[in-house]
């Protein structure tokens, strides 16, 4: 995939030394052959972050920290003791804990909070010598599809600064898109890795529910939340997943299933033909932008030419995915966010007169509008009079949606669809209408409701040069197959700019 920045940068304000690395393997090749060093790479990324500050992708940049770590890793490289991620300069979404560093979920309520521990997923990457260059802007408590609800302000899409990067992992996606770090770690509760990845023309992977430990991820909705990588290539997504995944004594919901060597098994055997279903609505509905329908149809045609069976499928329950998601996630959020009360950490109102008003005022002043709305909705659907009508009902529908998805995935190896119904929309375009904003997740939310893995891969550009994403989904814990087929598709499916 060519570097997308050609739409907004001229070659001459791009530091000539920072190559457009598509894979970590390419970086490690340059480190090995002495073309570059970790220190040099970190310096170049820091310079790019500085030059692109107006994108607002980072909340905090760890300049001296990351340079010091780079020095240490350069020494390890010389000594031949470096880990598998040596040379990886990584950004982490502001919902992932990193000991002795700030983390505040894009919210005022965690003002001045420094994490006393490191998330398991982050620790495993650090153990393999990843360098964390900073924490990245996101929608407050990961609630949003446009990165406009952050306490730290809006994030801008590098393909068009008047447009949103998607959300909630908007800063993380833009940072990879704009070359501010090589990869990012985001979280995906209803599409928060895949949707911004699609809007920014990069790869975003949401693993199966429970594949990666959630320890150290600030919870939004615990039965949906997944940590996932945002990268330039499927190859790197596979490597990061392999290192992060697997059993963890700090998370009793994480799967104890063995972790395959995703990075080793990614070559798809071309003679292996598969059955693929595509959502009929996604290429026929007027609600999907014409350019996206067109690009999706072209992919379908090329897959057929390659000898795969590609058929339209119906998912009668598709339209119920979003309301199910919003009932259950607001309910879980209202419970998860009860801990932010101004007592043990974070923001405390100075206006309080007693303990109850300390809770109320700290929470009211500390949470933003969308978070307060979702806490209220979640409290409402969990309240005694409405619990069965909303919450239990949604849990029943969730069961049906999961069964429908699993059924389809016994008949088809993969389900494909666009990631989003439109490309990146304009800043402010949907902020006044919650329901319109929620619809941005129509195709992504199913994987979270069903717990299946899904990946967003770039699929060309629309008439305005804005990135389009293709989503590929498969059965739970079949990431190996998903990654190797996505890698094959990325390499073989022609997009207009490749042709």
């Amino acid at each position, binding site marked *: 995939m060519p570097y997308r920045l050609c739409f907004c940068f001229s070659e001459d304000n791009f530091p000539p030394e920072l190559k457009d690395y598509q894979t970590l393997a390419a970086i490690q090749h340059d480190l090995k052959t002495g073309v570059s060093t970790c220190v040099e790479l970190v310096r170049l990324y820091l310079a790019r972050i500085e030059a692109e500050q107006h994108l607002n992708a980072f909340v905090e940049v760890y300049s001296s920290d990351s340079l010091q770590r780079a020095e240490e890793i350069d020494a390890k490289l010389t000594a031949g003791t470096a880990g598998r991620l040596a040379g990886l300069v990584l950004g982490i979404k502001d919902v992932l804990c990193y000991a002795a560093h700030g983390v505040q979920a894009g919210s005022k309520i965690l003002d*001045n*909070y*420094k994490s*006393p*521990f490191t998330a398991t997923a982050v620790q495993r990457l650090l153990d393999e010598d990843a360098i964390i260059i900073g924490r990245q802007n996101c929608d407050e408590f990961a609630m949003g599809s446009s990165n406009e609800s952050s306490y730290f302000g809006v994030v801008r899409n590098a393909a068009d600064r008047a447009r949103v990067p998607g959300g909630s992992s908007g800063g993380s996606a833009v940072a990879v898109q704009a070359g501010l770090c090589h990869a990012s770690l985001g979280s995906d509760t209803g599409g928060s890795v895949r949707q911004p990845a699609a809007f920014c023309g990069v790869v975003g992977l949401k693993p199966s*529910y*429970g594949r990666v430990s959630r320890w150290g991820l600030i919870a939004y909705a615990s*039965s*949906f939340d997944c940590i996932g990588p945002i990268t330039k290539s499927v190859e790197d997504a596979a490597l990061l997943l392999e290192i992060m995944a697997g059993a963890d*004594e700090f998370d*009793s*919901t*994480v*799967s*104890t299933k063995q972790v395959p060597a995703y990075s080793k098994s990614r070559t798809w055997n071309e003679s292996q033909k598969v059955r693929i279903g595509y959502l009929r609505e996604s290429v026929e509905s007027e609600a999907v932008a014409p350019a996206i329908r067109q690009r999706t149809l072209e992919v379908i045609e090329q897959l057929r030419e390659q000898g795969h069976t590609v058929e339209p499928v119906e998912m009668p*329950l598709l*339209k*119920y995915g979003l*309301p*199910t998601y*919003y*009932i259950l996630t607001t309910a879980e959020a*209202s419970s998860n966010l*009860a801990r932010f009360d*101004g*007592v043990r*950490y*974070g*923001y*405390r109102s100075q206006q309080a*007169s*007693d*303990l109850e008003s300390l*809770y*109320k005022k700290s*929470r*009211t002043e500390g*949470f933003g509008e969308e978070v*307060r*709305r979702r*806490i*209220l909705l979640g*409290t*409402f*659907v969990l*309240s005694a009079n409405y619990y069965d009508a*909303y919450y*239990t*009902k*949604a*849990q*029943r*529908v*969730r*069961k*049906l949606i*999961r069964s429908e998805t699993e059924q389809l995935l016994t008949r088809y190896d993969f389900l494909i669809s666009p990631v989003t119904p439109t490309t990146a929309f304009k800043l402010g375009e949907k902020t006044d209408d*919650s*329901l319109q904003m929620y619809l941005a997740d129509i195709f992504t939310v199913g994987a979270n409701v069903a*717990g299946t893995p899904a990946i967003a891969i770039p699929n060309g550009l629309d008439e305005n040069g804005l990135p389009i994403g293709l989503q590929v989904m498969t059965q739970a814990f079949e990431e190996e197959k998903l990654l190797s087929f996505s890698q094959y598709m990325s390499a073989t499916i022609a997009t207009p700019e490749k042709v």
Partner: protein
Amino acid sequence: MKIDREALHKVAHLARLEVKPEEEAALLASMESVLTWMEQLDEVDTEGVEPLTHMTDEVNNWREDVAKNALSREDGLGNAPSHDETYIKVPKVIE
């Protein structure tokens, strides 16, 4: 779903949030429209369907019942907005 001011304030109290008078109208309107949209689920026949309450196949991942203290008192107090050397401080609870 219609909700009135009283119900809104009751829910806000349960959630330990305050709703200012000038926010009431807009908040009621947006909550009502989202709740009404959520009621689409009534179209789905869920007769005899068990609610899905666990997303993982893992059953009872026990750990040894050994006390571990991963967080020192100093670290635990370090993030508190108000504390002394031993305790987190809050406004007086008992008169």
